[in-house]
């Protein structure tokens, strides 16, 4: 163990310890504290000047009051449930849009593939905020979509889409679509075409061959894509606050408002702790799927 190796490990370790682990412990600590009219607005504070007694004093004042408050106030329950619901519905919609696109890309002539790939990646590099913004102009009352639908005669009155949950679904599908397409495309491109020919030779119809061969063999990509959309969608803040309306309850927005508008730091921290607990399940499942993919390749 030489000095150089130790410092190579120590620098990123120390950095993440200070700027990732400790901040998270602070959130956890404040979630157990009480709100107070002071700066910073919570109590107890750690009195290091009092030494060990100060630490013990702090621990004795901790309680789960904020979590009890979250459990009794139905605003928080509803926002957690509706976040999960919105994330699930949009993930499913994303799959419905993304799978046919990934399938079409994998089936396209070889020379087109790099261009198609570039066309999927390009929006991913473009500013997230600007892409959400571009939807506002499309979805508003006098926006493009309403003008188009009125022009072709489908509707006579403009539809209200902006500032509803439907706009949030569209926003999530629009911004996270590349995350769904890329992993599915990666599994579909590796699919051995002779399997499909064999199935057809053995009397499968094309639809049957699709459901019994293509879909099962691209399952890992589908699962990866779904998690890559679901996990960030659950804690999303920008999309519900720009495209959603007053009825849109999402936990990222609740946390932001609790912190900045109500200035209730302990409750905001408790909201964050619960959100993380909810996220652990999909994250662990996603990791397991990735692990299986790596093992399958070896």
């Amino acid at each position, binding site marked *: 163990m030489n000095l150089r190796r130790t410092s190579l490990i120590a620098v*990123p*370790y120390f950095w993440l310890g200070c700027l990732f682990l400790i901040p998270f412990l602070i*959130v956890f600590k404040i979630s157990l504290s009480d709100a107070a009219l002071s700066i910073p607005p919570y109590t107890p504070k750690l009195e290091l000047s009092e030494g060990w007694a100060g630490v013990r004093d702090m621990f004795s004042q901790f309680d789960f009051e904020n979590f009890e408050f979250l459990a009794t106030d139905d605003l928080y329950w509803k926002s957690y449930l509706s976040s999960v619901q919105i994330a699930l519905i949009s993930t499913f919609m994303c799959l419905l849009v993304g799978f046919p696109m990934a399938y079409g890309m994998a089936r396209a002539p070889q020379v087109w593939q790099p261009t198609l790939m570039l066309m999927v990646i390009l929006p991913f590099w473009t500013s997230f905020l*600007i892409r959400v913004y*571009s939807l506002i*102009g499309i979805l508003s009352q006098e926006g493009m979509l309403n003008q188009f639908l009125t022009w072709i005669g489908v509707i006579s009155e403009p539809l209200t889409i902006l500032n509803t949950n439907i706009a949030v679904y569209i926003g999530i599908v629009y911004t996270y679509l590349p995350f769904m397409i890329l992993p599915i495309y990666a599994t579909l491109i590796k699919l051995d075409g002779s399997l499909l020919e064999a199935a057809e030779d053995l009397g499968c119809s094309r639809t049957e061959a699709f459901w019994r061969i293509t879909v099962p063999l691209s399952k890992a990509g589908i699962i990866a894509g779904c998690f890559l959309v679901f996990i*960030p969608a659950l*804690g999303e*803040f920008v999309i519900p606050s720009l495209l959603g309306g007053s009825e849109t309850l999402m936990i990222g927005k609740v946390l932001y408002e609790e912190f900045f508008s109500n200035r209730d730091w302990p409750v905001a921290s408790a909201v964050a702790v619960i959100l993380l607990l909810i*996220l652990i399940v999909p994250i662990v499942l996603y990791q397991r799927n990735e692990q299986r993919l790596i093992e399958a390749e070896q």
Partner: protein
Amino acid sequence: MRRLSWFNATSLTLGFAFLYIPMLVVIIYSFNESRLVTVWSGFSTKWYGELLRNEAFLDAAWVTLQVGFFSSLLATVLGTMGAYVLVRGGRFYGRTLFSGMMYAPLVMPEVITGLSLLLLFISINLDRGIVTIVLAHATFSMCYVSVVVSSRLVSFDRSVEEAALDLGCTPFEAFRLVTLPIIAPAVISGWLLALTLSLDDLVIASFVAGPSATTLPIKVFSSIRLGVSPEINALSTILIVIVTIGTITASLSTKRALVRKQRAERMAEQSA
């Protein structure tokens, strides 16, 4: 040559139309003469002029560039170190915790990252401003750099490194002369990713930026809240054009490098 079926062609056309029409509309309307954003009244570039005279936007853009520059440099160095430790570091005390901390920020919701860093900065009495945004951005983007770099470290032939060591290189020389040139493309794409993430970030920056530093996304967000405006259309167009040129250049240059590599391999095969 395979031909696209009717179904595949339709789904690709509709899908790409969905991805690109909203951005095209923004670009087209940035050249609209009228302040109304839904009525076309003639071609004009006046909103670009307005944008360039808008001090608040220019200041915010300058802050964003500074933050992006410093945070992406820090993130690239730290992320490359982290990737090297994870792939080549062997066993050391607390390895599980380390790899957990390297991956967790990738899946952490931005609101939580922002909240936790803000609470840290307040508790150590660090004045909020450019420095705190740089620290926050470097922390979450180093993990992305590490993912990109470690996938390259895993895939390359380790015996080259060992050969350098056998021939008398110190470990540091072996890293500088052999490993670094091989992983350089991944380090560069990691740096570009870190830069993009930093220039793009709204949520974390709005937690950790104090009143003294406003980044471009924070400024854009507060004006979007008031509705669609032609200046924002002009700004979006500029950003979309920059990203498009950058992405196409990058993909063309990787393609050219691939062609060159294939040609070299063919020549090597023929001469053998």
